[in-house]
């Protein structure tokens, strides 16, 4: 087929006038059954390079993509063009997925998007036997490489698959962000005479700024003052989940329309937020980097980072979502030298100790285990187990079976810790480069392009070092007071509502560890510091009023102690007296439990408190609304268990209130 003929079809089917040269070059190679790695910036039109040949093939093209939001988006667009495209993912019901698999088997689907994890699914593997497979696409191919910014273990199986594909079956790998090292790694892994095509990465509609500050307050104040002045809508990236909450509450306090987004939200909420972003419903979305590699919104006008990313490649990837329509877009990075502690902690602490690796190896050697049981056997946090699991799989010491069980590999090599050291050194160097970006006096765009191995020549006039005015933060008394008022009025929510229990979401008077509350608790609990100080009582009362207003509760119940004596009892009694609610002392432990903080993961925490409580006088709670008081809220397992028990005894509502909520293990 000539380019002219192809472009005729392009106009008819995709309503696009013509191909870029790089697109046509890629498509020609695909038609010849070759393998291509295509590195082009966001917005270039990489998708067309596989969508076009896919509609001309007589079978199905399978696209592995890690981004469910992107899959949904593309399927929507293709469907609108009358092209049969579907996606299979974990956010659809298994009936929906089965239905799509059946359509694929019947040859009714041209373009099928699936998540790499699907390769672990038996039904899918069975289905592929009956599909007429014509091309395989690996989207976000940098996820293949541990040297990239977003290595994903599930992609390892995709690489193994690609290696097994017969010669002559075209394979296209695409990414917008790959350094030379990642490029070479990906090309080597895919193999089979792959051709790499690399475009330029320059985004000249970006206006890049770095704002140096000396505290978190300065960031909050500057954003509070200036956010509404930005055109259109955008994204603010924070470092942690807690920060997304704090920033969105701050904007709420200032009546700036915004919402928080993180990986802890359920699919439905995430989809709703993604849709509302598309419809410009918010001025901004405050997110951890869980949001949006795949958000295909052309007019994101600003992207602001309150936390320095781990490397320039992370940064380029995250800001890449701005201004796909080519219109000017503001790219702002806040930097307080203290901020580098978070990425440093990720790099240093991101990898569990060798001892923990050995614990996992020993457990798996002894028996075939699922993740849950492995957590129980080893008392390790879920995210640590996952890191260890991924590393041990990489080193061919263990493998994960189709039924998710983890098995030790016969004749496995010993644990190789050098690989970890090498990776850590590389990451430390990347973070150093990111700080160089902050400190540079030269063009910031050039810095990023150089870093990514784009050697093409441009003039750069689009940053605060090359013509744009520098931003400095002015802290006024008015704003300091506004922020103070917000702080005193902000109480973290306890999300505990669950089916089958009458427990409702409650409130904490503070986060543990971000204020003086934590140290006061610690003194009383562990340093014989006497009863909880009075300021905690007033803070808890304030939190109560904020969350529950003038609501009356029939009864105050408190969680009986594990080891710290009557602190909570005394505290709850004081609170009950002031609120003028009767108090009950009848929630008891019916067996000895350990302190929850001993346990590293929620399964062991739940096991620890399961059936641990009893209520001595059940009729006391029957038909009542109950305020449930405890000192520290960690995983929530304790108050949930108490809530469950009180529900069985007929309580109609159980509202938990605690002094402090821990920040918890789930940072992003």
């Amino acid at each position, binding site marked *: 087929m000539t380019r002219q003929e192809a472009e005729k079809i392009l106009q008819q089917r995709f309503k696009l006038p013509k191909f870029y040269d790089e697109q046509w070059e890629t498509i020609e190679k695909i038609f010849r059954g070759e393998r291509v790695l295509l590195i082009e910036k966001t917005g270039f039109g990489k998708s067309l390079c596989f969508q076009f040949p896919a509609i001309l093939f007589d079978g199905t093209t399978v696209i592995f993509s890690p981004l469910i939001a992107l899959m949904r988006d593309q399927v929507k667009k293709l469907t609108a063009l009358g092209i049969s495209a579907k996606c299979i993912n974990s956010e659809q019901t298994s009936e929906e997925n089965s239905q799509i698999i059946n359509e694929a088997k019947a040859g009714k689907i041209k373009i099928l998007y699936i998540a790499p994890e699907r390769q672990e699914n038996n039904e899918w593997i069975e289905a592929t036997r009956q*599909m007429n*497979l014509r091309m395989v696409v690996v989207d976000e191919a940098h996820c293949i490489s541990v040297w990239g910014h977003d290595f994903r273990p599930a992609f390892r199986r995709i690489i193994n*698959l690609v290696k*097994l594909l*017969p010669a002559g079956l075209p394979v296209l790998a695409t990414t917008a962000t790959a350094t030379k090292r990642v490029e070479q790694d990906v090309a080597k892994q895919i193999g089979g005479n792959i051709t790499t095509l690399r475009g330029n990465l320059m985004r000249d509609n970006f206006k890049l700024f770095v704002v140096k500050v000396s505290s978190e307050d300065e960031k909050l104040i500057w954003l509070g003052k200036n956010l509404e002045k930005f055109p259109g809508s955008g994204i603010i990236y924070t470092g942690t989940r807690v920060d997304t909450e704090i920033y969105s509450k701050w904007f709420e306090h200032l009546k700036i329309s915004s919402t928080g987004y993180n990986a802890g939200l359920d699919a439905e909420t995430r989809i709703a937020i993604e849709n509302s972003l598309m419809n410009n419903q918010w001025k901004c979305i405050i997110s951890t980097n869980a949001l949006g590699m795949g958000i295909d919104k052309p007019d994101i006008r600003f992207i602001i980072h309150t936390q320095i990313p781990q490397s320039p490649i992370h940064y380029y990837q995250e800001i890449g979502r701005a201004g796909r329509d080519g219109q000017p877009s503001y790219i702002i990075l806040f930097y307080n030298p203290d901020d580098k502690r978070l990425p440093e902690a990720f790099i240093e602490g991101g990898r569990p100790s060798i001892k923990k690796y050995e614990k996992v190896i020993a457990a798996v050697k002894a028996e075939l285990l699922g993740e849950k049981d492995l957590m129980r056997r080893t008392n390790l946090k879920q995210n640590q187990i996952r890191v260890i699991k991924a590393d041990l799989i990489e080193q061919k010491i263990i*493998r994960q079976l189709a039924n998710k069980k983890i*098995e030790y590999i016969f004749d496995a090599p010993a644990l190789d810790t050098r690989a970890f050291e090498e990776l850590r050194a590389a990451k430390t160097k990347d973070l150093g480069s990111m700080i160089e970006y902050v400190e540079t006096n030269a063009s910031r765009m050039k810095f990023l392009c150089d870093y990514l191995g784009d050697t093409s020549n441009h003039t750069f006039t689009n940053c605060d070092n090359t013509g744009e005015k520098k931003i400095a933060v002015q802290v006024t008394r008015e704003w300091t007071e506004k922020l103070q008022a917000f702080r005193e009025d902000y109480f973290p929510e306890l999300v505990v509502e669950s089916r089958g229990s009458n427990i409702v979401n409650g409130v904490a008077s503070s986060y543990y560890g971000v204020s003086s509350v934590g140290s006061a608790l610690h003194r009383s609990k562990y340093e014989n510091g006497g009863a909880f100080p009075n300021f905690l009582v007033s803070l808890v009362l304030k939190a109560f009023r904020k969350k529950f207003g003038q609501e009356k509760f029939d009864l105050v119940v408190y969680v009986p102690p594990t080891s710290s004596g009557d602190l909570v009892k005394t505290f709850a009694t004081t609170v009950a007296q002031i609120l003028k609610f009767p108090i009950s002392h009848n929630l008891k432990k019916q067996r000895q439990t350990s302190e929850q903080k001993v346990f590293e993961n929620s399964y062991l925490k739940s096991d620890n408190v399961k059936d641990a409580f009893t209520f001595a006088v059940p009729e006391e709670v029957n038909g009542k609304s109950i305020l449930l008081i405890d000192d520290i809220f960690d995983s929530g397992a304790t108050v949930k268990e108490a809530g469950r028990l009180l529900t069985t005894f007929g309580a109609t509502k159980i509202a938990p209130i605690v002094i402090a909520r821990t920040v918890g293990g789930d940072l992003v």
Partner: protein
Amino acid sequence: MNNEATYWIALAHLPRWGHLKINNLIIKFYHEKKISVEEFFNLSETQWGNDYQLDEKQVSDLRQAKSELGSNAFLAESLFSQGFELIPIVSPEFSKTLKGNLKAPYSPAVLYVKGNKKILEEKSIAIVGSRDASEIALKFTDNIAKLASKEYKVVVSGFAKGVDKQALDSAINYKGQSIIVLPQGIMTFDSGFKKYYSQIVNGDVLVLSTFFPKAPWRAELAMARNPIIYGLADEIYVAESSEKGGTWSGVVDGLRKQRKIFVRQPEPTEKNANLILIQKGAVPVDFNGTVVSKTYYTTVEQVPVIQESNETESIDKKIRSAFNGRPLHVNELLVRLGMDWTVKKLTAYLKKLDFIEIVKDRRPNLYKLKGSEDSPQQRLFS
């Protein structure tokens, strides 16, 4: 070899080609023309026809297999990710014992395995016998497995009830090594992998199958698996055989292939076919597997063999006793009888029997003894 797995899977399971045809093709491209399986698949159809003298039907089979390579890749990836390995017949890892015993007409083109592959290089014995073997046969099995384990010989067994299971359990018990030869595809053996997890992790057990990885258990596969067991073993011991069924046909087949087969010398009172096998050329052994002396053997030979006077009568009797009050499908009946008949043959035979009737309104047909009342299962609603 792993990158070629996709092609080996396609080649090894060409429908109705049989081992000989497939092996002859492998000999031709791999040994004579010295090209890889991938290169062979990438030849033109004309080349297949001219250079390999393949007829139109065969070329069409290969064309079909080639079009499924992409799908095979998904299967192969899934296979490897679960820790299974594929050993093609041209690989140095392929069991030399198996190849030597079965040669081109009977060797499978690939082995699917999981566990310690080195076990395939060790001296090996198979202990075979019926599913409902007598106490003495099981004791013999245990003893032979013990002696083998002591001498670092691998015990090959078929994972059936009775003698097979005993051989495996004993080898494990005596810290020996074993090969489990599956009557099914290797990806359908989850419970077994769970059960023998620590033996596999420690390198004492290798699980092996020659069938399509996802093939479920079938009576035909159980039959087809027997020659693989015999082929993998340097020595074959028969604990107990009846006059029909897998063990019997396996031994007879082995004798026909000139294998030396040791059969447990039965007590005079035993009712089994061990003596008949000895008469047919198998070597009698005592409880410790030692060959029984010729003179003793000769005297035994003179003892009249316990034989059913009428073979048909014996089959009818077996069929009667196979029904324990429950109607059966032909397949189920075949398994219970342990006979090497085809479903078709048994169906035809059943229809001639006056004491068997067909249960109405069931597809496929259920058979029961005339006059017996039971339905397959108590039903709440009918």
